[in-house]
């Protein structure tokens, strides 16, 4: 059992693809209610690390612990059920469903999702009612009340990103992995997104691990930053420490 104030711990994780060492002995800790940034140049292994944590890849070496449980080796759906929610760089919403439906798909173990019960409306209608109410409240709370019945294709990029993040809230989300939440949105929108992240941390007590390229936005919101370079941890520390670290500047700007 690891320390109770740590939500996610990645221990010496390595992932090799043939001869390529995409990750090589990376260790990361995310404390409870922490907002932790993960930065690094392209191809430094950030998304690979996310894929290892969420069960898309089996790590070649190392362990992943979440809330005191070992989760490497679980399938992606099982990782989600533990309370670890992931978003994608290019948001993956269900494009033919409405916003509300996208949120409603999320809750696990719905009675109506069992094939034997689904034709019997009375079995699941109560649960569905409470879920709909929860989802509508959630969307209203974050200013998306006008879009409840819109299709995903009618939304702006920023709203799509918000919904991808928010839909995890209807369930037992405990921690988020966000992959470039600010990519492809205007500066002010990016700040709004990060303000929302902070709000979620304060109101819901969630922890965050965030990949982001837009440092000028990220650095104002995170508590702690890890820098990956060529699959290895290059530096870590508070935003100020990392920004002034000559090794980081070199990695970003080239020698």
């Amino acid at each position, binding site marked *: 059992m690891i320390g109770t104030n740590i939500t996610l711990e990645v221990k010496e994780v390595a992932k090799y*693809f043939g001869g390529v060492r995409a990750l090589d002995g990376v260790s990361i800790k995310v404390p409870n209610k922490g907002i932790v940034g993960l930065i690094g140049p392209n191809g430094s292994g950030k*998304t690979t690390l996310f894929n290892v944590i969420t*069960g*898309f*890849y*089996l790590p070649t070496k190392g362990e992943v612990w979440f809330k005191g449980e070992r989760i490497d080796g679980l*399938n992606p759906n099982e990782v989600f059920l533990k309370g670890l929610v992931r978003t994608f*760089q290019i948001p*993956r919403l269900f494009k033919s469903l409405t916003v509300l439906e996208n949120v409603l798909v999320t809750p696990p173990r719905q009675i109506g999702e069992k094939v034997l019960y689904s034709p019997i409306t009375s079995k699941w209608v109560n649960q569905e009612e409470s879920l709909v109410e929860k989802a509508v409240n959630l969307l209203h709370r974050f200013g998306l009340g006008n879009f409840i019945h819109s299709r995903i294709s009618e939304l702006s990029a920023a709203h799509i990103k918000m919904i991808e993040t928010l839909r995890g809230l209807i369930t037992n989300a405990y921690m988020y992995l966000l992959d470039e939440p600010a990519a492809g949105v205007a500066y002010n929108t990016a700040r709004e997104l990060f303000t929302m992240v902070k709000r979620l941390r304060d109101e819901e007590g969630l922890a965050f691990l965030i990949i982001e390229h837009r440092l000028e936005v990220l650095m104002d919101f995170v508590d702690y930053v890890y820098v990956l370079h060529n699959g290895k941890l290059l530096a870590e520390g508070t935003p100020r420490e990392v920004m002034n670290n000559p090794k980081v500047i070199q990695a970003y700007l080239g020698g």
Partner: protein
Amino acid sequence: MIGGADIINTIYIGLVYTVMAIPLTLSYKATGIINFPHINFITYGAYTAILLHDILGVNNVFIAALAAFLVGGVISVINNLSVFQPMLRRKTNLWIIMIASMGLWIFYKYLLYSVLDVLSKIYRINFISRLIRFSTLPTFQVGGLELSSAFSTTLIMSAILLFGLYLFLERTTAGKAIGAISDNPVLAEISGIPKDKVINIMWFVVGGMTAVGGLMWVIFSIATPEIGDWLILVIFAIAVIGGLHSLTLTALGAFIIAAAENIGLLYLNQAFGVPTSYKPFISFLTLLIVIIVWPPKGAGGGLPYRFLTKRKSFRGENK
């Protein structure tokens, strides 16, 4: 006993399969479309030869082959211009395009039936099931063994086609551009290759070559509008064995399947009494097994297949 005739038969069928399967691989590589009208190229090629022979009295098999090439090529280009190109431009899913191509296959198949129906009534020949013999077929003698005229023709024609294709792909700029588009379509465009034009050329060659394959088939075998359907899963199986990627492997696959169908089945028949009518069974079984055990490049689904094999990794959703 497995004799020389069976070996010759295997080579013979292997060559025909090669000529039909290589274009399929070529078109899949360049466009990603699984092209069902490939079936029609075979049938239309065969019937071009038959109609020329029976109606216009063309007895030279090479003139017939030229005509078949043109017919197959033109149909192929029409398909591309009218269906594939607009759908690709709209970024339609490839599997939806595949279904549209399936519609085209059915359309062309019964269009041929209708035309043959009419012609049969006019000329009072049963075109729906027809066996023809070109009178001017070359023959060879190899080491005292006389090769049948059909075999010799197949040999010459496939040599011309395969060598021609080789020259086209390796020695001409347009041919190399096809390779470039299959390799890296985006880079091909920014290098200044007019993609649409080159793809049209590719479709023309694909349609034409397959059509001549169909002609090669009817030189020794009965023609019906169904021959394409009989052959297509075999051709798919061969292309999949080639990983839908390598033309050489495709040719190898053609001979493996031809051998399995001819020599392998003969062996099974003699040893276990398996009826020879199980012939197509073998190719479908091969197709199933190859797809399941060794899926070709680009055939993978979207899930991380750790559900099925513990070590296979996910293709990565990044970029």
